[in-house]
């Protein structure tokens, strides 16, 4: 069974349609990338999965059970965790406090110590900076903290919204490497990115969203070779 499935999902902001009849499946253990222009509906899709937006039609299923009627905190409790675009860490709290807040769910709380060890091993810089106010760290370090905070909730599905945003090339490579590592350790990943080439290189499969509709889907490699993708999203 798929881990997550969207079936004919429509989402609208007032009269403005943002997603139309979106079908999408995520298989356990995979990295799935969703690419598309700004305004295509990628973030809207993540917000609908997280329960921050309600679909107007269609359904979202986790292990075959309805997810789209649950409030966001319950979605997180089920192991579906989003790293928001722009990181949204708590700037005045320390690194450690930010991480601890990630393990606030009932399911994650008993494993806090073990989760923390894992996150600090994955991001040694966070161990070094554990007592520092998070807002005083660089953009790359804040992105690592945002991912670390999400891992503290012990996600089965980790959803990342533009993790490379505003980061230096070296840090982008580092972030993508770590996403691969998280996936190999058993977490399913849904990645939304403008950095189309790196996203499709990392992903096993990809979806292309245009004006709120899925227009293409396939292996990441095949999408990279697709003429339309090259013209519309790779600037070739």
């Amino acid at each position: 069974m798929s881990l997550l499935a969207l079936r004919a999902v429509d989402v609208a902001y007032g009269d403005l349609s943002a997603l139309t009849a979106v079908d999408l499946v995520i298989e356990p253990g995979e990295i799935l990338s969703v690419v598309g222009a700004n305004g295509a509906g990628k973030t809207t899709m993540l917000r609908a999965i997280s329960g921050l937006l309600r679909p107007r039609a269609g359904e979202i299923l986790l292990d075959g059970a309805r997810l789209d009627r649950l409030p966001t905190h319950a979605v997180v409790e089920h192991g579906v965790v989003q790293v928001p675009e722009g990181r949204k860490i708590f700037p005045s709290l320390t690194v450690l406090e930010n991480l601890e807040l990630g393990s606030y769910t009932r399911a994650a709380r008993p494993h806090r110590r073990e989760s923390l060890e894992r996150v600090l091993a994955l991001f040694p810089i966070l161990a070094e900076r554990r007592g520092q106010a998070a807002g005083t760290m660089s953009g790359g370090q804040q992105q690592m903290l945002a991912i670390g905070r999400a891992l503290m909730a012990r996600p089965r599905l980790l959803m990342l919204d533009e993790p490379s945003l505003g980061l230096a090339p070296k840090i982008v490579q580092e972030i993508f490497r770590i996403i691969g590592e998280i996936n190999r350790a058993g977490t399913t990943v849904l990645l939304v990115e403008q950095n189309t080439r790196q996203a499709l290189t990392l992903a096993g499969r990809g979806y292309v969203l245009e004006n709120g509709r899925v227009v293409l889907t396939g292996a990441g490699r095949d999408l990279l070779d697709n003429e339309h993708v090259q013209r519309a999203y790779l600037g070739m």
Partner: protein
Amino acid sequence: MSAPAGRGLEIRGLTRRFGGLVAVSRFDLTVAPGEIVGLIGPNGAGKTTVFHLVAGYHAPNEGSIHFDGTSLVGLKPHAICRLGLARTFQLVQPFAGLTTLENVMVGAFNRAREVGEARRRAAEIVDFVGLGPRRDVPARHLTLPDRKRLEVARGLATDPRLLLLDEVMSGLNPTEIEAIIGLIRRIHARGVSLLIIEHVMRAILALSHRLVVLHHGEKIADGPPARVARDPLVVEAYLGETSEAAAR
């Protein structure tokens, strides 16, 4: 937009501290009239602080900043803008309730003396950046690529000889980035010099005549883009792996 021949931007020994942190340290930089200079470096290297110092948002602790021979140190941002030096911001924050045209008019008032003139200047700039079809739309309804164009338009409407662009390509996909590269080339063709902060290496290599690299507040490289991108110090501090991979 005729630019009188000048000496451009000349920064010498610029230093700025925040508490115990030295954000920018003895930094030298020139941007000659007609030049496009790329300013790159890791997150937190001090690039945006340099923009803040040049544009008058912070005062330097040490060093000098001259634009066409006039010292900028101690001048207010609006006075620096009036001298012909404009900047954009990384996080674009247009007046959400104003239309595209009205937002650009705010910039045009840097030179215009009355509303009609500001409107004419702004309308020309709105068309120039490709926002003509969106000119009467409230800024809150613009997509991110269009908001980035609006940010550039607001700066351009002040009629600068030097324009400082702070990550106008972040958050855009490669095809949207190609369009902004074209826009920057057209701005340069109007006679505007540019100093550009950007992490998109393909764009910065395509546009820059010269590339300057900042690391921990200090300049570690300054030269032709192709040479700087191969500099082992720059690869280690900023590009990682191979510079070819980063430039894609």
